[in-house]
């Protein structure tokens, strides 16, 4: 078995590469990166003879297809703007793959992927990713799923990388159309900072106020898990949330042109460049990922709520920012290994909750010290007792 770790020397994906080296049994792991020097340094550091390095230009479609053909699985850790390019190249090359985020248009390759007999799983990070597995595990405990509420606390600085900065700016941009929740058979569009509620994440993150965030789980779970209502709410550390609120309220996310001392630009453009360049945007007191998924439904005719939450080693132990990155990269590596060893039977472009057996996935997470906890409670609406 051969796995290609695409962008595998990057800030996040290097931890997927490291996980592949530590846990997989495949014969070869190839780091495909634009930055060959970083890739070689990483390979030398890990020191696994199965590791190889190849230079990849993700803008060269034909080159990607040729490269992919020699692999069993492509693990895509490139910035999200390459999601479609990689999906397309996987389908053309007839090689299964997975990536960390989700682009709506990726589902268009479903039929072509089936035809080629491959599987491509978008969104196998922390959220989407672990949250899909948690929801799937919760849904499996029920006969019928009424509602899935996904909550996350992404504790990282605002701009650890250009891609992750764009993600935040996009998630809070008032023009983002994908900020939806699902209820009563349809998707409802909502604005930034709407749907506020307080969620108690495991310590050290603790109680945080979360709001609706545009996320693919909302799109896939009504169908994949038969949920009648789905929502994703999330937050970043308080200092990032404060900044986003101010940027939003003060018009700094606007794309209307402004002239600054004779230079024509837009606030959003400057904002983006500023946040990449300013040292303040790299500052963050606490790194980690809080995930809490609530699945409501029926079991044996009773109303039941399954609550699932994660725990992972603290930042002090996992090395500061790595405590955040590992939560994204480890699922990617687990997913790649499950695909390569034949655990995934579905073909086509498939959501994580459909592709992966949650119990196997959760067991794999636990081997890496990411624990999923679960509580099952029965509840009922007072005054509508079934004894009446």
């Amino acid at each position, binding site marked *: 078995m051969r796995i290609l770790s695409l962008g595998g020397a990057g800030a996040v994906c290097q931890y997927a590469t490291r996980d592949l080296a530590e846990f997989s049994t495949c014969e070869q792991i190839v780091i495909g990166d634009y930055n060959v020097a970083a890739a070689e340094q990483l390979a030398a550091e890990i020191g696994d003879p199965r590791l190889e390095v190849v230079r990849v230009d993700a803008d060269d479609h034909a080159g990607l297809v040729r490269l992919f053909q020699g692999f069993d699985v492509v693990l895509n850790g490139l910035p999200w703007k390459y999601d479609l390019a990689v999906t397309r190249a996987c389908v053309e090359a007839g090689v299964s793959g997975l990536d960390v985020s989700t682009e709506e248009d990726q589902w268009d390759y479903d039929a072509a992927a089936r035809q080629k007999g491959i599987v491509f799983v978008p969104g196998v990070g922390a959220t989407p990713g672990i949250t899909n597995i948690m929801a799937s595990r919760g849904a499996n405990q029920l006969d019928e799923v009424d509602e899935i509420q996904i909550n996350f606390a992404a504790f990282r600085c605002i701009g650890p990388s250009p891609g992750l900065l764009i993600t935040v700016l996009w998630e809070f941009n008032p023009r983002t159309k994908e900020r939806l929740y699902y209820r009563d058979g349809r998707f409802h569009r909502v604005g930034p900072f709407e749907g506020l509620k307080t969620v108690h994440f495991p310590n050290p993150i603790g109680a945080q106020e979360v709001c609706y965030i545009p996320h693919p789980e909302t799109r896939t779970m009504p169908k994949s898990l038969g949920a009648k209502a789905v929502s994703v709410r999330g937050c970043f550390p308080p200092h990032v949330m404060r900044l986003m609120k101010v940027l939003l309220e003060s018009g700094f996310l606007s794309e209307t042109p402004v002239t600054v*001392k004779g230079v024509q*630009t837009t*606030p959003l453009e400057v904002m983006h460049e*500023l*946040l990449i360049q*300013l040292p303040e945007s790299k500052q963050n007191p606490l790194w980690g990922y809080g995930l809490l998924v609530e699945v409501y439904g029926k079991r044996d005719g009773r109303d039941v709520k399954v609550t699932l939450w994660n725990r992972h080693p603290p930042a002090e132990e996992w090395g500061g920012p790595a405590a955040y990155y590992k939560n994204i990269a480890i699922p990617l590596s687990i997913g790649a290994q499950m695909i390569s060893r034949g655990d995934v039977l579905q073909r086509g472009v498939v959501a994580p909750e459909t592709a992966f057996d949650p119990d196997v996935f959760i067991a794999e997470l636990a081997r890496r010290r990411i624990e999923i906890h679960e509580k099952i409670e029965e509840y009922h609406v007072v005054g509508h007792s079934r004894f009446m």
Partner: protein
Amino acid sequence: MRIVVLGGSGMMGCISTQDLAQDRRVTEVVIGARNMPKAKEVAEAIGSPKITIRQVDVTDHDALVGVLKGADACLNATVYYTNLQVMEACLEAGVHYTDMGGLFHTTRKQLELSDRFAEAGLSAVLGMGSAPGVPNVQARYAADRLDTIEYIRIYDGIKPPPPGDVRFTYAVPTIVDELTLPPMVYRDGEFLACEPLSEFENYWFAPPIGLLPMHLSLHSEVATLPLTFQNKGVRECFFKINYWGMAKETVEKIRVLVDFGFAGREAVEVKGQRVIPRDLLVAMMANYVPPITDFLAPPKNRPPDWVKEIVTEVQGTRDGEKVTYRMGTLTCKGALPTGVAPARAAIWLAEKRIPAGVHPPEAVIDPVPFFKELEQRDIYTRVSVTEFL
């Protein structure tokens, strides 16, 4: 009498222009402005035949000298960064000078020009707005009546706008500086740099303004008062304000941006062009500046429905007895004293009532006639004296 008001069509400058045009001693008010359409809008709104407009960029020394020549006084109502340049132009043009403040550090530099002004037989009064300006003269009133001074505490109390009302009612770059630069205080013979937005205390102002949370801010009064009255043994001097007259929420928002580095002066490259973060912040904040006609409109309230009280408390001794003076200058239009006070100083300069050299207001502005002149424009000053048993 011909007075040039640089920035005479700006937020504060337009009020000075209006005030000067209404004064019978003044025969011509020249608005020196970069933005001609705006200058015309202001001139039309005031509608006085005394007003003329000259386009000028204050960074163009020769052009500025040309505009200043023949004037009896120059009132610099542009942002304080230009103070030194404008003073140089005044020296060359042979024109007296006043401004609305130099945010402590610039005022200090301006005072160094005193010998050159004196040699040229020219006079300058620095920081003659509502604050600095009014508190300096208030302090002088008390100082004239005290043998020793223990402290000079200045409280600029402004009725805050409602929380959702985001507006910046004076120079935006100055607001950003006040928010980010360490406030200077004078304690036990030393000038100390403190944290912005620190040393909060509640202070009671004339109703209906009432109790307001006051914090330190960088201001010019502190740069000069302890030195002017050094011989009276001043031990403490500070300036406090309530969120610079803005809603607390507005200040908190700007603070978040500042904490993330948006007030930085290092350029960043945006699509091949260089943009300074601070410039963007200032440009974005400019969207929240009210229309200029708001500044020229008559007060919405009538006395005693005050919107601002500028207070200076001076404690000291007279004939060995402890005495406290509380001077409160009240207005029903917050920006009015900022425009009117320097206009009065400009007239006094033109009337040659100020000695040659560069001076802080407390050194050269005679308090009683000054406050009487402010009273003619519905800006009232009250004095209360507390004696101890």
